[in-house]
């Protein structure tokens, strides 16, 4: 405190409380709406205090979902979201860790080419290459077959003596299709690279003198040292994965693979009638719950992850 200005302090608290009020308003209204019966939300102004229909709403949504739209229970959608968020977070961390290790700890031809190839992914978010990426997911071998066609080979199969490999593998409506294309990550690779560069060289020397090979060094020294970074990154990536929208929208047509964040739009955009707001808000509350709980529960790791991924 530079000087004592009690009124300014009171004013600061006032502004902060007001700000929190504005920020929290949507959350409050959503949670309150999810505890009311449908008919309570038909006339304005809607109630601003909790109703008594909470158990019914949540039981219906978790158990059977909204019948007239996709009719998938929210437990399934949340499970899909969880699979997606976990695979993306773990996948990204795993492949970025080893990629950063290779780039920092080995001298090999084409090292910088590899580095720039990873760097380029920063500039190519899904949003700018929607259609061609969809094509690849519809058949993962598209790049290969097109290249083979360019080289003069026709058809979509490779014939080797004894076996024929059919180059047709669709990832639409699968967990692999939902997660694989989002797993490459320049940010995570850079974060680990940045961290590895701060690890003292003496550790590497000591390990080498003791006869440890690169993999043993990675497993026994580098990995334990990276623990906090991994945890911080996990928090950010879990939220990133859970909140994906465009990609699940493109690659899933089978309701069994719908994620909760993407599933809500079909409950809101119902033709001609007013959506069943109490149930939509129940779904919204459930969709927000896991990532918000993680941010609040792991605040320190979250802030660390957020600040470091931006460097």
């Amino acid at each position, binding site marked *: 405190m530079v000087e004592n200005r009690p009124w300014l302090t009171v004013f600061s608290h006032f502004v902060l409380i007001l700000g929190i009020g504005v*920020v929290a308003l949507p959350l409050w209204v959503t949670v309150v*709406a999810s505890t009311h019966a449908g008919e309570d939300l038909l006339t304005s102004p809607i109630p601003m205090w909790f109703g008594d229909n909470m158990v019914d709403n949540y039981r219906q949504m978790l158990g059977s979902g909204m019948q007239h739209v996709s009719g998938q229970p929210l437990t399934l959608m949340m499970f899909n979201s969880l699979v997606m968020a976990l695979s993306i977070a773990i996948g990204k961390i795993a492949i970025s860790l080893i990629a950063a290790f290779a780039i920092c700890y080995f001298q090999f031809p084409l090292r910088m080419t590899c580095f720039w190839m990873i760097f380029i992914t920063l500039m190519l978010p899904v949003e*700018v*290459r*929607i259609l061609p990426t969809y094509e690849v997911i519809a058949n993962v071998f598209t790049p290969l077959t097109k290249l083979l066609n360019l080289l003069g080979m026709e058809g979509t199969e490779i014939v080797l003596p004894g076996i024929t490999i059919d180059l047709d593998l669709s990832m639409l409506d699968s967990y692999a299709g939902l997660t694989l294309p989002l797993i490459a990550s320049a940010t995570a690779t850079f974060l680990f690279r940045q961290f590895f560069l701060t690890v003292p060289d003496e550790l590497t020397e000591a390990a080498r003198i003791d006869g440890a090979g690169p993999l043993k060094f990675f497993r026994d020294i580098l990995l334990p040292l990276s623990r906090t970074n991994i945890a911080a990154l996990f928090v950010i990536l879990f939220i990133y994965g859970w909140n994906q929208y*465009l990609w699940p929208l493109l690659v899933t047509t089978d309701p069994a693979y719908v994620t909760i964040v993407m599933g809500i739009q079909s409950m809101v955009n119902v033709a001609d009638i007013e959506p069943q707001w109490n149930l939509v808000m129940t779904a919204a509350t459930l969709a927000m719950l896991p990532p918000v709980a993680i941010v609040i529960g792991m605040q320190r790791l979250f802030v660390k992850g957020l600040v470091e991924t931006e460097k």
Partner: protein
Amino acid sequence: MIKRVTFKHKWLPYALLAPQLLITLVFFIWPASQALYYSVLQQDAFGLRVDFVAFDNFAYLFSDPTYLESFEITIMFSVSVALMSLSFALILAVMADRVIKGATAYKTLLIWPYAVAPAIAGVLWYFLFNPAVGINAWILRAWFGYDWNHTLNGTDAMLLIVIAAAWKQISYNFLFFLAGLQAIPRSLIEAAAIDGASPLKRFWTIVFPLLSPTTFFLVVVNIVYAFFDTFGTIHATTRGGPYGATNTLVYKVFNDGFIGLDLGGSAAQSVVLMVIVITLTVVQFRYIERRVEY
């Protein structure tokens, strides 16, 4: 760039890089090159013939009034989101930097919207402003006599998505502003206070200029966010409407390519978007490098 002490191995580094590079090649570089390739082709209405048309798709794009309008809408949207979210977050960060009691509690209560998906944020505000039952729409009608209707009025729809997108970004901006404020040396502010500068004057002449690297960084991040991460916000609520009032560039690529199945046109739009991302990324990186020196 590389450690002083390295390992030697013939194939191990390639094996370690393989998963990352494979995914990058198959799902990033290949599709991007395809987008470039399609953008100079044109398919006939039945998908039977494909002609090479060079830059016709781009020429068509930039003479198409709906595309130019979408460009304007996107710029207006991004600037509004950045301005609204940054100013709100800055005020809160300055206040949070001042108070001692309850600072952590305030922080906790302000950072959670970051975790809300853009699409869900859209749905929440869509409900609040719903013309029939939304509490905000009701307040606007009952207290201010304004008949809010984002399903018919383009300005209302635009405001709705701006608010929803800006709301979600407040937490992020708040955290970075607060970190920036806490990095400003106290001695500077104390010296100014001794010279008799009021808190407001100190803010404008010392704090705000010293905060400018953070502000500039956040402006770029917010614009990238508003350009590319708000697809869900729009798709779950206004769907580009009414009458194209919220049809941003990213929404349009999706709509033309996936619903309209216009291959060449959509690819040309993708290429334009790629140029935008690359420009923004380069700006961000050049700037960050300078900050490291500074």
